[in-house]
C-alpha cells in the first residue's frame, strides 16, 4: 500500500492519477495512525514551507517522518521539507538532508518554471531506465543546493539538486506526476525497485 500524505497544502490529485494509471493500491493519509499501514509514502508538495510544516506538525507527522524506516518520496516542496531549514517562511524542516533550501537569486526568471534537462551524477534504482539529459517539469522558487546526497542535478543559472537520496529518503525537485513518460517511469521505479 502506498500512502499519499495529504497535509492540506499539496494537491494530491495528480499523484493519485499516476498511481491509478499504474494500478497501484494507495490511500490518502493524514495522521500517524494512517501512515503506519503503508509501506511507502509520497509527500507531494505544492504550497509554502512553513505552512506545510505546521500542518504536518498538527497531524503528528514530524517526528514520524524524521525516524521512519519506510520509504519516503518527497516531491518539489516535499523534497525541500527534507532539509534542515527552508528560507521560505524561515521554516525548520525535517533535518534529513544536511543543508538548507534557499531562494533563487540573481538575474534569472523566478519561479524556475518549465521543462529542464537533468544530469545523472550517480546511478540509482529510482532513475533506472531514465537517461541523463531527460526532461522533467519544474515549478519552484526555492531550491536544495548540491550536497553529498545529490544524485541528479539540474542547471538553472547554477547547478542545484534535482534528486537527493539518503537511506530510505528520496526527494525530487521536479514534478514526476507532470513530466510525461519519464515521470511515470520514476514513480514506477520508486514503487517497484526502491
Amino acid at each position, binding site marked *: 500500500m502506498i500512502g499519499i500524505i495529504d497535509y492540506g497544502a499539496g494537491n494530491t490529485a495528480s499523484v493519485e*492519477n499516476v498511481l491509478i494509471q499504474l494500478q497501484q493500491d494507495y490511500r490518502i493519509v493524514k495522521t500517524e495512525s494512517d501512515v503506519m499501514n503503508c509501506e511507502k509514502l509520497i509527500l507531494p508538495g505544492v504550497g509554502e514551507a512553513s505552512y506545510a510544516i505546521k500542518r504536518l506538525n498538527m497531524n503528528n507527522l514530524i517526528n514520524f517522518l524524521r525516524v521512519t524506516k519506510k520509504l519516503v518520496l518527497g516531491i518539489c516542496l516535499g523534497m525541500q521539507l527534507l532539509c534542515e531549514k527552508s528560507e521560505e517562511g524561515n521554516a525548520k524542516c525535517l533535518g534529513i538532508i544536511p543543508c538548507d533550501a534557499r531562494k533563487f537569486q540573481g538575474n534569472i526568471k523566478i519561479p524556475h518554471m*518549465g521543462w529542464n534537462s537533468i544530469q545523472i551524477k550517480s546511478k540509482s534504482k529510482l532513475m533506472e531506465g531514465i537517461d541523463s539529459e531527460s526532461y522533467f517539469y519544474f515549478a519552484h522558487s526555492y531550491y536544495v543546493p548540491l550536497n553529498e546526497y545529490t544524485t541528479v542535478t539540474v542547471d538553472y543559472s547554477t547547478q542545484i539538486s534535482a534528486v537527493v537520496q539518503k537511506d530510505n529518503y528520496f526527494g525530487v525537485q521536479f514534478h514526476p506526476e507532470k513530466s510525461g513518460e519519464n515521470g511515470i517511469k520514476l514513480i514506477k521505479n520508486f514503487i517497484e525497485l526502491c
Partner: protein
Amino acid sequence: MITKRIIPCLDIKDGRVVKGINFINLKDSGSAIELASSYYDNGADELVFLDISATEEKRKTLITLVKGIAKQIRIPFTVGGGITELQDIDELLKAGADKVSLNSAIVKNPTLIDEAARRFGSQAIVAAIDIKKIDDSEIVFIRGGKEMTDKNASEWCKEVEQRGAGEILLTSMDKDGTKSGYNLTFMKELNKNISVPLIASGGAGTMYHFLEAFIEANVEACLAASLFHNQEIKISELKKYLKQNGVNVRL
C-alpha cells in the same frame, strides 16, 4: 538547460471545446479531453483551458472536466476564466489543475493575487493580462476585452509580479487573430523589466512568429489557439523548426 515552452489554448464552454476546432481523427471534435490528449501526444509542453461559461451550474461542469483532463494527461495545465475567489482556485487545484489564470478579478481586487500566492504558492498563479494600444500607450482591458481600465500595461505587469503572480500571460488584442506575429515591441521592453516568466499570446500565424518571439523578445513561452486547432501548424513540427533555428525546446 531550461527549454522554451509551446502552449495550446482551448476555449471551453459548458464542458466542451468551442471555436475553431477542425481536428481530424477525433471521434468527438468538441471533447476537451480528447483534444488535450492529442496535444499531449503531439509534444505540447503545457495546456491552457479558458472557461467562457459563466453560471454557477456550469462551473460544476468545469470541475468535472478538470478532473477528467488531469486523469488523462501528464503535463501541467492552467485553468482560467471567471475565477473571482480563493474558493474557486482551491477547487480547481484540488481537481488536478496545476495553475489558475486570473484576469478581470485581479484588476478589480488586486489583493486576490497576494492572498492566492500566499496560500497556493506563486507557481500556481498566472496573471492573464489583455492589452490594447490607446494613443501611444498599451492599456489593460478586462471582461474579455470589452472594458477598458485606467491601468497602464507595464505598470500593471510590475504590480502583479510584486504581489506574487508566478507568470504573466500577455495577450495583445491588437494582434490577436491577425496572424501578423506577436506584439514584440511591447514584450521585448516588458521582459527586461520583469523577473517572472512571460507567456506571449495573440498574433501567431507562422512558425517564424514563434521563433522571433523567443529570440527577439526572449519570452519563456508562446501560446496559440486556432493555429493549432486547425492544424495549420503541428506542434511537433514547430518544435523541430525551433530547434533547428537554435531555440532550446523539449523534443
